[in-house]
């Protein structure tokens, strides 16, 4: 399982890549593997305001449907439009081409509440075997 060291994570299996005051959001390799083939991703519009921990979208596979939870509060500044036609990018490239939204981070203090790679790996292990 791939858990890049430079990203931050939620216990709900989203990742956040921070560059300046912008955070890029997607779901982890573990999440995409658990879902199976992703067939549909519903994302908010640019300009939508997110609250940390609240749902911002939905990811569907033939097997299941899961809410997407915002890792941080802020305003959506970009949406990955390619996912509308190619939702399989979430499976093929969860940390790169399969990114979902970019957010202007509203509360930098929230970043400290996210997991680093080691803590996320431990979380997955406990959830998986627990």
């Amino acid at each position: 399982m791939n858990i890049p060291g430079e990203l931050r994570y939620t216990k709900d299996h989203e990742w956040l890549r921070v560059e300046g005051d912008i955070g890029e959001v997607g779901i982890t390799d573990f999440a995409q593997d658990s879902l199976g083939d992703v067939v549909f991703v519903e994302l908010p519009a640019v300009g939508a305001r997110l609250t940390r921990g609240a749902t911002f979208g939905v990811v569907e596979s033939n097997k299941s449907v899961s809410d997407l939870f915002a890792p941080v509060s802020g305003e959506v500044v970009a949406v990955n439009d390619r996912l509308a036609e190619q939702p399989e990018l979430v499976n093929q490239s969860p940390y790169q081409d399969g990114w979902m939204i970019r957010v202007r981070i509203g509360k930098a203090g929230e970043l400290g509440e996210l997991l680093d790679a080691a803590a996320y790996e431990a979380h997955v292990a406990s959830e998986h075997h627990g």
Partner: protein
Amino acid sequence: MAHRTPLYDEHRALGARLVEFGGWDMPLSYTSALEEHRAVRTRCGLFDVSHMGEVELRGPGAMAAMARLATNDVHRLADGQAQYSLLCNEQGGIVDDLIVYRLGPAQLFVVVNAATTVADVAWMRAHLTGEASLDDQSDAWALLALQGPRAARALGPLVGRPLDTLASFTIRDDVLAGCPVRVARTGYTGEDGFELFVPADQVVPAWRALLARVRDEGGLPAGLAARDTLRLEAGLLLYGTDMDATTTPWEAGLGWVVKGTEYIGRAALEAARQGPRRRLVGLVMDEPGVPRHGAPVLRAGQRVGAVTSGTKSPTLDSFIGLAYVSGEPTTPGTPLTVEMRGKPLRAHVVARPFYRRQTKEGA
């Protein structure tokens, strides 16, 4: 603990993702369900469906007993022929769907669903009439499904007799990799293909030989996830999901399987023949989203039914489903709304099957 097929260790070694289905640990997918689906539509795929139940009816009264048990007309079968049929209760509700193979004038071989095997055997024993005996052989048989346009090319070199003489919906004895098998030209994918009944204690070498041939033809081992999307595209129903004991064959669109004259439930079904209060329809979503089992279906703002199955169709690249819909209209083109997670999504009725194969490759 769930049952395991004799190929459990093979699936583990292939890296399959396993899932519990009908009381069995079964491969859900090996690599990607999508790739496995496409392999079956364009080349071939090999499924372990040993969880299915096998029952043999023997004796001079076997044909008469089956005519009483199941709704299709078993008397139309000659030796080596197969038919799709239904067990119904006295109220006309569907107890299970099954395939009946006539091996001889006094020998019928019946394949039933995994989750219902125990109940079906009890039901058939309780309703057995005349000079017939019933033998549950489910543990003795493994069942492999080899499906796809290249299935015949993959299987041909492994069996003793040419497959072009094995017609659709027939069965015969053969030898596969030194192992005595029953080969049937049946399946659950909408493609040409075969179902191979192999003695459970000899199935590992048969599976390995078949899988090598399948890979030679560009095919893949395929799991239950692909099996579900394939059968749904082909408009085939899944017992327990699309029909159950509260459903009549008329409602499920299976009236064509009700042809017998002596079957259990005939009085109730004859009385209910005209204008079932609800019908199973095919639907295609006009807005993205997988229709989920149980999702409410509305027509002109009124709740008229519920979804039974849904998927993103890999072949059609659209979201498809089956749903029971009350009243009229239910004709193709009728606009419906499917409520998912509280959100109304537009859909419309289409004719089933969603997918029909165009050509037959090889034979």
